[in-house]
C-alpha cells in the first residue's frame, strides 16, 4: 500500500513518514503543495495525507485539482485549522476524513487503516489466507492454533496487497508501484523473488502466474 504525505513541517513530515513506514506502508513525502499535487497526479497512491496550511498552494486547492481530473484515492486532511467551517469545506471538496492537529499516532493509524480498507476491494478487518490469518500489528502469519510464520517487510507488503486485491491480475509494474517508495530502485525481477518466497511459505497454488500479464491471488 502506497501513501503520500503532503506536509510542510520539517519535523512532523519525516516522523509521520517513519511511523507509517513501520506499518509496512510505502510512504512518499512532499513538503509543498506543488510537488504534492504533481505526485498525487502521477503516482497511484492508495491514500494521501494532506496538510491544508501549505506555504505555496493551499491544500484545499490541491485536493480540488485532484478531484477535478477524476482521481478518487482516499484523502485524509491533517490540519491545525479544525473549525467546522473548514471541516465542511474540506469534506465537500472531496476529503474522506479530517484530523485536527495535534493527534495521537494511534488515532492517525486507525484512520489510515480504515481509509485503506475502504479503498480496497476487500474491506475485512482481518485478512485470511488458507489456514493463516495476517497479523497486521506484528506483520506475520498466525494459524488458529497460534503457530507463527514470520514475514519480511517486503513479503508482508506484497502479501497484504494480494489479500486486499484477490482475484485481480496484478502486473509487476502495478505491484512495484504500490509497494515501493518513489525514490527506491524498482527492479521487477526482485518481485519474482518475493513471490517465490510467498509461495514457499503459503503453498504453490496460492499465487498464479499469468505470463506477460502478472500475478493473481487465488483464494479457495
Amino acid at each position, binding site marked *: 500500500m502506497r501513501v503520500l504525505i503532503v506536509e510542510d*513541517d520539517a*519535523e*512532523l513530515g519525516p*516522523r*509521520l513518514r517513519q*511511523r507509517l513506514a513501520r506499518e509496512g506502508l510505502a510512504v512518499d513525502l512532499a513538503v509543498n503543495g506543488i510537488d504534492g499535487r504533481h505526485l498525487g497526479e502521477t503516482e497511484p497512491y492508495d491514500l494521501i495525507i494532506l496538510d491544508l*496550511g501549505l506555504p505555496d498552494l493551499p491544500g484545499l486547492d490541491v485536493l480540488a485539482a485532484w478531484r477535478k481530473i477524476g482521481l478518487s484515492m482516499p484523502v485524509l486532511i491533517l490540519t*491545525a*485549522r479544525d*473549525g*467546522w*467551517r473548514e*471541516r*465542511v469545506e*474540506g*469534506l*465537500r471538496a472531496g*476529503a*474522506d*476524513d*479530517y484530523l*485536527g*492537529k*495535534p*493527534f*495521537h*499516532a*494511534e*488515532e492517525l493509524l*486507525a*484512520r489510515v487503516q480504515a481509509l485503506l480498507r*475502504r479503498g480496497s476491494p476487500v474491506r475485512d478487518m482481518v485478512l485470511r489466507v488458507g489456514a493463516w490469518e495476517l497479523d497486521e500489528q506484528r506483520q506475520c502469519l498466525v494459524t488458529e492454533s497460534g503457530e507463527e510464520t514470520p514475514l519480511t517487510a517486503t513479503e508482508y507488503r506484497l502479501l497484504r496487497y494480494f489479500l486486499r486485491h484477490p482475484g485481480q491480475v496484478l502486473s509487476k509494474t502495478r505491484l512495484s508501484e504500490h509497494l515501493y517508495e518513489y525514490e527506491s530502485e524498482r527492479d521487477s525481477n526482485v518481485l519474482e523473488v518475493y513471490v517465490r518466497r510467498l509461495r514457499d511459505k503459503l503453498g504453490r497454488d496460492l499465487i498464479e502466474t499469468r505470463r506477460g500479464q502478472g500475478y493473481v491471488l487465488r483464494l479457495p
Partner: protein
Amino acid sequence: MNSLKSRITLLVGICLLLLLAAQTLGLRIIPAALVQDYVATRLEHDADTLYARLLDDTDPVNVFARTVGIIYETPLSGHYFRIDTGETVLRSRSLWDEDLSIERLPSGEQLINRLPGPAGQSLLVYSRGYQVRGAPVTISVAEDVSAMERTVARLERQLLAVMLLGIGLVLFLQFLIVRHALRPVDAAVQACRKLEAGGSAPMTARAPREIEPLVDAVNRLIRHHGLRLERTRRALGNVSHALKTPLAVLTQVTDELEERGDRAAADALRPQLKIIRNTIERELHRARLAGRDHPGAGFNARAELEPLVEALNRLYQSRVHIALDIQGETVPVDSEDMLELFGNLLDNACKWARSQVRVTLRQGEGIHAVVEDDGPGVEEADLGHLGQPGMRLDEATPGHGLGLAIVHDVVAQYSGEIRYGRSLELGGLKVEVRIPA
C-alpha cells in the same frame, strides 16, 4: 441629584424663581411709594396755599376754601382739609359733617399718615404745624387714594400672571434645550454600552462643539477597542495554530519513546501534553466564538446545516442517516458559532448512532434544537458529566472529548440552555439546546 439635566434644570429654575420673587416685591413697593410721593407733594402744596391764605386773611373758612379749589367744596369728593388753630377747627366743606382725628403738631413739624376716611375711603393725610400771628396752627390736607391703590393692585396681579407664565415657558424651553444639548452624551453612553457588550458601532450623531471632543474620543476608543479585539483574536488563533504542529511532533516523539521501551518518560510527558493540547484547543475555540453582538448575516440553519450533513455523510460514509427538520426564519446569531455548535453535536450523534440521527430545529424567537440518535445513549448517572472538558465516557471512540465542552461554551456565550436525556423514539442520547433571541 447626579443628573446633569436635573441639575441644570434645578439651577435655572431656582434663579428664575428668585428673580420672580424680587420682581414681585418690587411691584408691591415701588408703585405704592411712587403714588404716595406724588400725592404727598400735591397735598403739601395745598397745605402751603392754605397757610398763605391764613396769613393774608382772617376771613371765614369758605372764603379761602374756594381759593384752594372747588374740589374741597364738593361733599365727599375725596379731597379734604382741616385747620386746627387751637381755638377752632376749620374743615373743608367736602368733609361734610365728618371729622378727621388728627393730633396737633408743633410748628415746623410735618406728618404723613393713612387714615380711614368717610364713606369707606382710604385717605393719605399730610399734616403740618405752622405759626400764624404767634398762634400755632395745624393744617392737614387729605386725599382719597383707594382708587389708585386698586389700579396698582390690578396692574400688579396682571404683571405677576404674565411673569409666571413667562417663567413656566422659560423653564420648559430650557428643559428642551438641555435635553437637546445632551443628546450626543446619550449617544456616547449608548455606544459605550454596545461596546461593553462586544459590539462596535461608531457614533454618527452631530454634536455641539463642546461635546464633539467627547464624541470623537469615544469613537476613537470604539475603533481602538474593535481593532484590539480583532488583534487579540488573530494573535490567539495564530499562537494556537503555531503551537499545534510542534505539539503533534512532541506527541509523535512520546509515542516513539514508548515504543523504544522508555515507558516512564512517555508516561511523564503524556499528561502534560494532554493539558497543553486541551488548553490550546478549548481556548482557540473560545477565541473564535464571536458572541451575540457580532451577528453578521445571521444563522440560516438550512443553508448551513445541509452542507454540514453532506460533509458528515462523507465522513461516516452514509453509515448514518441524518434527518433534518428545520422550520423558521434566519436568526441574528453568529453563523460560525452555530456551525461549531451543530458540527460538534451532530458529529457526536453520528459517532454513537447505529443508523439514524434526527435533528429538529425551530427558529424565530431564538433557536430551539433537538438532536437525537439511536445509539446506546448515556446512563442517567453519567448525564451530568457530559460536556465537561476532557471527559470522555468512551475511550474507544476517536476524539478529544472536547466536542461537547465546546458546545457548552457556545451555549454559555449566548446565555442559552442545554439538556440531555434519552430519546423516546430513537432510544439513544437526546440533546436539547435553546438559544434565546
